[in-house]
């Protein structure tokens, strides 16, 4: 059988509470909140709608709902409290450092939100007449232009809904390009350090995934790629900078070899924040790359989406970009929406990724971010992101372990867990102890290429003072782990809204929705 190398406990140990009980279960500002199904009723509502007109005859064709509608409602003040209390159980970038490697949790400017809510963007329908939306099309075209110029690429498919969707789009463009050349290649090369979405995407399109091992220094060896290239290889999916925080320094050579084999180079753009203004994927030989607008371009993560994943394309792939797209002409922006439009435009779109035009709301936010930064600000942001990561590295390298040594990293730095050897503290415990200190944990157990990985990405949004406190805190935790304060780590977090949760029970017997409590019978009540 295949073996999980990172087995770790998913059932918490029993621990006692450290504070006296309260009648309500609340702990001052930390207020326990039931689910709406426990407190709302079918009768209550927080919306006043006009009385329906009794004289209008129904035309529902006998399909009126007879099935019960179990949706509890709450009056507005109750709803407000319910969701405000719930919100207070979340960590957020607006509260503190969010050092999640490869996730780029940077500040989300509120100007972005304000612009996204302008009626001219937010209150516009995707299928209202094209003549009534020139500004929306212009926004898409302008956002596309900034992305192309910043990355040195020829075109961009704007419609993918998120990073993984962009990946799918990029790989579809590659598949379409091979098909256009009468080829049907079956293999995609993916390095071991890649995001899980890469192999999942390739497999979805029927490709066989061949893994490329990382070399000692955490980067991809061109020789390992060349060895696996053949006329059956459709492409390579490479993250650059990679998930070890290192720039693939042989990338140009790899791209050249890939192209010589008739294959395409897909770059996972998750880590673009490290190189904007410093290097352009187009100059590195990249054929397509998705851009996570919710990472590099500051659109909010929103507790897990929505994101946006435009895909920039090289000259070799641009003709295959999916529908729809916006073309800038002298007369203004033109929407290419149907295969007939595309034929007239001389392109060969592979198909359509989504209904409508993509994540317009995210384009507006990203555009606002780009205009705010400008070419100089974008470069400064990347420099500061890299500076901050290396500052954290310099502050921690003598007490934590760097699997790839004391060298410059890009925007994130990877530690392994060997500094915790013989302490009885695991990466998981260490991360949970960070929660008690008021920090969100770093990315852990990813990438898989080192043991007990801890991947730290501070982003450019952190001040020096913030980083100093973070470094000092981690140094203190390391010292405590080495001093044998194991219980502090094993029980952590102590001060979060919840202690460690029983993930085993949740997975063995999944409860995925609220169900009404069993009615008590007369016997049971006695």
């Amino acid at each position: 059988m295949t073996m999980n190398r990172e087995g770790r406990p998913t059932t918490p140990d029993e621990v006692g509470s450290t504070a006296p009980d309260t009648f309500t279960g609340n702990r001052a500002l930390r207020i326990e909140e039931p689910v709406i199904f426990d407190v709302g009723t079918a009768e209550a509502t927080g919306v006043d709608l006009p009385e329906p007109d009794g004289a209008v005859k129904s035309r529902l064709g006998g399909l009126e709902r007879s099935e019960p509608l179990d949706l509890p409602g709450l009056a507005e003040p109750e709803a407000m409290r319910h969701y405000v209390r719930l919100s207070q159980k979340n960590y957020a970038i607006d509260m503190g450092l969010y050092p999640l490697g490869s996730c780029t949790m940077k500040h989300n400017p509120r100007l972005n939100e304000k612009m996204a809510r302008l009626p001219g963007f937010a209150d516009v329908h995707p299928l209202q007449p094209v003549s009534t939306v020139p500004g929306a099309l212009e926004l898409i075209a302008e956002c596309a232009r900034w992305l192309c110029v910043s990355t040195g690429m020829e075109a961009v498919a704007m419609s993918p809904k998120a990073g993984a969707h962009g990946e799918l789009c990029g790989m579809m463009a590659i598949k379409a390009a091979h098909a256009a050349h009468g080829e049907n290649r079956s293999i995609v090369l993916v390095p071991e350090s890649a995001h899980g979405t890469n192999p999942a995407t390739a497999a979805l399109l029927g490709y066989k995934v061949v893994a490329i091992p990382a070399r000692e220094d955490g980067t991809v060896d061109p020789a390992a790629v060349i060895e696996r290239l053949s006329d059956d290889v459709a492409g390579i999916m490479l993250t650059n900078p990679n998930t070890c925080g290192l720039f693939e320094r042989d990338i140009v050579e790899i791209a050249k070899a890939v192209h010589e084999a008739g294959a395409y180079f897909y770059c996972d753009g998750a880590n673009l924040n490290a190189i904007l203004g410093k290097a352009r994927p187009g100059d590195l030989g990249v054929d397509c790359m998705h851009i996570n607008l919710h990472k590099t371009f500051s659109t909010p993560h929103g507790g897990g989406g929505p994101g946006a994943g435009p895909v920039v394309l090289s000259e070799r792939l641009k003709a295959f970009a999916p529908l729809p797209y916006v073309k800038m002409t002298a007369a203004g922006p033109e929407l290419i929406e149907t295969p007939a439009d595309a034929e007239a435009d001389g392109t060969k779109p592979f198909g359509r990724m989504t209904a409508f035009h993509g994540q317009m709301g995210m384009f507006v936010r990203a555009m606002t971010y780009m205009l705010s930064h400008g070419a100089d600000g974008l470069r400064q942001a990347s420099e500061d992101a890299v500076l901050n990561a290396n500052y954290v590295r310099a502050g921690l390298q003598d007490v934590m372990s760097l699997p790839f040594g004391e060298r410059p990293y890009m925007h994130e730095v990877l530690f392994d867990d060997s500094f915790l050897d013989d302490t009885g503290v695991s990466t998981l415990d260490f991360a949970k102890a960070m929660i008690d200190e008021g920090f969100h944990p770093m990315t852990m157990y990813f990438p898989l290429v080192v043991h007990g990985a801890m991947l730290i990405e501070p982003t450019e949004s952190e001040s020096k003072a913030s980083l100093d406190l973070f470094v000092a805190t981690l140094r203190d935790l390391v010292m405590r782990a080495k001093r044998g304060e194991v219980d502090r780590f094993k029980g952590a977090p102590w001060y979060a809204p919840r202690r460690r949760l029983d993930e085993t029970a949740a997975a063995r017997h999944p409860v995925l929705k609220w169900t009404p409590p069993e009615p008590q019978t007369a016997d049971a009540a006695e």
Partner: protein
Amino acid sequence: MTVYFTKDHEWISLDGDVGTVGITDYAQNQLGDVVFVELPDVGKALEKGGDAAVVESVKAASEVYAPISGEVVEINDALTDAPEKVNAEAETGAWFFKVKLSDTGELDGLMDADAYKAHIADL
């Protein structure tokens, strides 16, 4: 009854030409809490070394390989409702499936208990 082991941590216990297959105690220990087991359909033809079942912990899904070629003749349905049995009794009650061997010669390449013990000691 003879029990054989694979280097990938499956065991197979032989009764005539029917083998009972499970994962080793070492494997369950490495996986942590097992939360789900996916078993093959009865009647499925297995090929030695091919995917036969899946065992999942919260954070990982692991393929269980067929230690031997043959046809699945029985599966241990009890594991579907109580995957925790894999942690409690990996090498006894928590067998995964029974297979009718198509080539007993394939047993030659497998380890006995002592050899397996030595194998995991090296890991």
